[in-house]
């Protein structure tokens, strides 16, 4: 029994990826046994996923490395599972691609958020009936598997496979209604995400090839291709000490960086790639409202932090400032768009878009605080938005407890103290401020506009335009309990992380520190005295504006 438990714990991440896939198949298999069986199968699956998530988080080793040398070491992925996919045997000649999944500080929170969102989506649609229900649940579960796979993948090819795979279940969910406008939106989403996935895949394959070329020597003319993300991250940095390898890397790095960053930016819903999202949200079911931002926000931020920041500091440093200006324009533009929109549901969509751009802006600040805040906020905003979508229907006529919970959820979207949004926004704003106070000032202005618009909407009791409520508004006590069951885990996590974000921070710090080790804002932080700090920050600002060449 103990061995079974240890096996379960050690493979919990793998099971979090595989279990929903099995669930999706089971849901289809249960169709002959009636809709209730189908619903119970899906619900059991998400509950088991929730249980596995708790097991994973409870067994995540916090670690306690505080000295400078330890910070330079890469934190290993925990609870990892390695399954041979192709090659791997000595002399086989096939590329060593593995089904390797695990969790580290960067991927922990996105995995948790995705599991919670899938749970909320299944629970909220539990009361629905009809022929499409099995397909819906299968799509939700497959989407859950794909998204967890993206952030848990330790292999480049596996990452790309899951990235591409995540598009199609969402397309099925979105296209359920099948009218012309929906299909147009679905087509745009598929095109946008497919291009994004292809660009990322091209960039990562090129990186794998480049790493192989870097290691080519006379003694070893054909080094094996390496697909492990951690090995690539550490290996490329280490091989830069070799002149020839550095020269090789310098020739391809711009292309790799461009392809990966462009792909992830398209994915992130940043302006001008946001069109399909707003169209989709106007016409979709509650499950799509909850899950569609998850395909974009956390994945894009995770990808940039995982690949772009640790591998391309030489490119990121000089480009960060112009990109941050563009992102700032995007944030202000989205805030103004929010001002001209009506209804709580649509406002929440705009808030999602704005916070997506805000997270990217925080990443471009290249400060530990900004990056950490972006990682937290990109996932926590999804939980808050999902809670609003679940509670927002029939806003003026809902029960008192629901109204109260709705206020909490909207507050979390806006980042009131005590919600996870507050901690995320605080870190993002301080992180941005560290590197450019003017950008922080304008960001505050954009957030102020968003707050104002929400205040007007709430105080004037604007009805929401969430199109397909959880179908339980008039279904009595059972329906209310279902909504409560769907919302409670979300609000609990939002409140818990708002009051005790250190729980997450202690698990993220090492991984983020490793990612940021090659950036001057953090690399010598521990050696800095307080009096040196302003000077160092101004030096970093000059780096970002291109006044000083990065060595």
């Amino acid at each position, binding site marked *: 029994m103990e061995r079974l438990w240890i096996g379960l714990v050690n493979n919990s991440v793998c099971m979090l990826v595989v279990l929903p896939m099995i669930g999706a198949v089971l849901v289809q298999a249960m169709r002959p046994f009636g809709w209730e069986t189908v619903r119970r199968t899906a619900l059991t699956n998400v509950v088991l996923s929730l249980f596995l998530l708790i097991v994973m988080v409870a067994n995540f080793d916090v670690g306690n490395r*505080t000295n400078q040398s*330890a910070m330079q070491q890469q934190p290993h992925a925990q609870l990892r599972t390695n399954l041979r996919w192709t090659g791997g045997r000595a002399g086989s000649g096939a590329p060593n691609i593995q089904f390797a999944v695990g969790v580290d500080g960067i991927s922990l929170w996105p995995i948790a958020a995705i599991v919670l969102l899938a749970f909320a989506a299944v629970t909220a649609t539990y009361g629905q009936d009809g022929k499409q229900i099995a397909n819906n649940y299968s799509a939700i579960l497959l989407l859950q598997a794909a998204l967890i796979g993206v952030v848990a993948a330790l292999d480049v090819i596996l990452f790309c496979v899951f990235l591409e795979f995540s598009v199609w279940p969402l397309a099925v969910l979105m296209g359920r209604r099948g009218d012309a406008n929906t299909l*147009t939106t679905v087509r*745009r989403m598929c*095109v946008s995400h497919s291009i994004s996935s292809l660009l990322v895949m091209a960039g990562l*394959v*090129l990186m794998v*090839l480049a790493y192989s070329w870097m290691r080519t020597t006379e003694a070893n003319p054909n080094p094996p291709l390496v697909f492990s993300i951690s090995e690539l991250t550490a290996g490329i940095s280490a091989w830069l000490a070799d002149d020839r390898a550095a020269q090789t890397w310098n*020739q*391809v790095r711009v292309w790799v960086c461009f392809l990966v960053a462009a792909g992830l930016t398209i994915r992130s819903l940043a*302006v*001008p790639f*946001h*069109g399909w999202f707003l*169209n989709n949200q106007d016409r979709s079911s509650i499950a799509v409202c909850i899950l569609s931002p998850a395909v974009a926000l956390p994945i894009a931020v995770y990808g940039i932090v995982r690949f772009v920041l640790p591998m391309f500091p030489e490119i990121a440093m000089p480009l960060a400032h112009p990109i941050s200006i563009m992102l700032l324009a995007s944030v202000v*533009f989205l805030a*103004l*768009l929010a*001002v*001209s929109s009506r209804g709580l549901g649509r406002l929440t969509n705009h808030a999602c878009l704005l916070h997506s751009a805000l997270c990217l802006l925080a990443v471009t600040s290249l400060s*530990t*605080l900004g990056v*950490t805040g972006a990682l937290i906020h990109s996932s926590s905003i999804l939980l808050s938005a999902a809670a609003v979508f679940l509670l927002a229907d029939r806003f003026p006529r809902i029960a*008192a*407890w629901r109204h*109260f919970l709705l206020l909490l959820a909207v507050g979390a979207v806006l980042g*009131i*103290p005590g919600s996870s949004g*507050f*901690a995320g926004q*605080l*870190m993002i*704003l*301080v992180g941005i401020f*560290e590197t450019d*106070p003017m950008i*922080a000032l304008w960001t*505050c202005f954009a*957030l*102020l*506009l968003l*707050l*104002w618009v929400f*205040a*007007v909407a709430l*105080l*004037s009791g604007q009805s929401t335009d969430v199109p397909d409520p959880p179908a339980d508004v008039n279904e009595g006590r059972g329906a209310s309990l279902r909504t409560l069951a769907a919302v409670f885990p979300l609000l609990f996590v939002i409140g818990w992380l708002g009051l005790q*974000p*250190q729980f997450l*921070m*202690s698990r993220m*710090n090492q991984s983020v*520190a490793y990612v940021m080790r090659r950036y001057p804002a*953090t690399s010598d*932080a*521990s050696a*800095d005295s*307080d*009096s040196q700090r*302003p000077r160092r920050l101004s030096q970093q600002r000059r780096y970002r504006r291109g006044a000083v060449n990065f060595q």
Partner: protein
Amino acid sequence: MIKVVAALMCIVAAAPLVAALIGFVLETLNRRAASYWLAVAGSTVAMTASVVLMTIVSNPMLLPQDASRIELFQWLQVGESARFDVTMTLRVDSFAALLVLMITAIGTAVLIHGKQQKLSRQVQHFPSLMLSLFVAIMVVLSANFVMLYFFWQLSTVAAILAQNRGSRSADDASPAKSNLFLCLVIADFALLLGVCFVWTNFGTLELSEVLTEANIAGVLADRPAVVGTICFCFFLAAFGRTAQFPLFVWLHDADRSRPADSALIQTATLMPAGIYLVLRSHLLFDAAPDTRLVMAMVCAFSILLLSSMAITQKNMTRVLSLSSAMMLGQAFLALSIGTFDAIKAAIVLLIVHSLTKAVLFLSADNIASDCDETTEFERLGSLRRRFPKSWWAMICALVILVSGIWGTSRILQNLSSDLSAKTTAVVNDGDEDLNLKDPPAATVASVAGTLSNLILASVFLHSLAVFRAFFLVFHGGNAEKTTKPGPSHESAGSRWVPLFALLVSAAAVVVFAQTNSFDEILLRSFWSAESVETGSFLRPAMLVALCSAMGFVIAWMLYVKPSVWPDRIARVAGPFSRLSQHGFYVEEFYCSFLARMIRQLAGLCRWFDRLLFHGHASRACDHAASAIARAVRPLHTGNVQLYVLALLLMIALLAITLLCNLE
């Protein structure tokens, strides 16, 4: 003893929180009476604990150190090297203990006063009040800037909840309803920017580490403009909270809510937080004379503007709100002087104003409860016989408030001393030397005299405004009476005992403030403040008393009985009267100019978005995708192997291209 202080701090903070949380549950279960009594119990426990806390902390024999602190838990630590480290820590010194006592006392009085209305109030009203109380206490007990910002912003939320739930009218669709929210959020962001500046320049967020002379001098030497910028941010944040110009428009929402709700917001939770921020960071302000000068000038303008608005308002709650903002503006003016006497005057002004203004608001609530929930002068009048206790409470509170012997005259006295000190400096040192040592000194010297005159003018206008309101409600007025039949609400003990308890407290504070013991208590927190020799107290006190008396007499002559003179004067004043009555159209300016400009800009963005991103760009992408699809249609055979082959060929092509480039 440190453990006792720590335990007391926890009790003071936890009692309202527990009452609020359980109250929310009870109200959800429709147990409103239980929720009310729980709130009263929580508030009373907090007040009792704060009395003991004040006794211990203010006594050097019991607690030798100036401040005591207790770490609750680590909230946030970002980075391996623990740079951004926020620990939830409570910190109390004699000044904080004094403010906590004031907050809990007013909170308890407001709650006891609300006994009769516990069943008629809206859902979650009392828990919201308790939440406001908890947040206000935590703002004062915060030991670092992030915690301060955390609870500062939470107090915004609590105030909006309390104000919204306490709203009497169903006019929720009014855009003006969001004024409170907007002004407070601007203040919040200003504080956040100030905190960011503190962190990036001081490298720490602990109040006790930032607010030291050595650290401030270090930053001042390295970056002279930074301290001024931080102070400007704090000053803007505090101005938003205390409804000073240009962020005073949220006061216009006050007449839409019950006077009792305004009492808590304006005297215990929201407004004192602004003064507290500036008081707590007075060392920073000391190092930023330019910002202090700007603060003094804006305050003087604000005071004059608010008091001139107050004399023409038609609603008692609004007059009292404007009076609150004006009094706190005087406190800011005192803080801009920066000497120990001025700081003391500001603190006494804050406390006495809070206690007396709570009495005024609660008395107004007594009247409103019996008069169809209105405080409009048109619908009130000749109520002295019906509300004798409220009449006595209000007249006593007004006399204490406008006499100014404890605050305003001290400010005038310090301003005069400052003026003479600066003038002496100009004469003795010459302009060049002065500019090197203290650049704005010459300017201060020229401005101080004007400020004194402005204060005296505003004292007169303030006295006229509040006594006008008093006489219109209790004596004059011939409009339709709206009082309900039967005994008045104030006959219940819960409606008048808190008023007189607060009045006694205010009088006690006025007396206690004249003793050395009070100075010793404050010196434990403000030991570094500069003490300067001030001139005679008699002249400024007489000037203030004269101006106040003039205001009283004119109000008595015009409003104690129905008269045609007010209308005649209004006709003579003409445009000024209309401007004053409409708040100088500042709110209209915001709504019609700023808000409209933003909305038009938003409309332009929407049009641009539809035209470009949803229109042409999307269609172009669609056309491109269709064209590509048509182009590759011949390859679309359905043979998966062919697709895989095509993909592999593309990858091979890419690899070959790169290999060629490498050479």
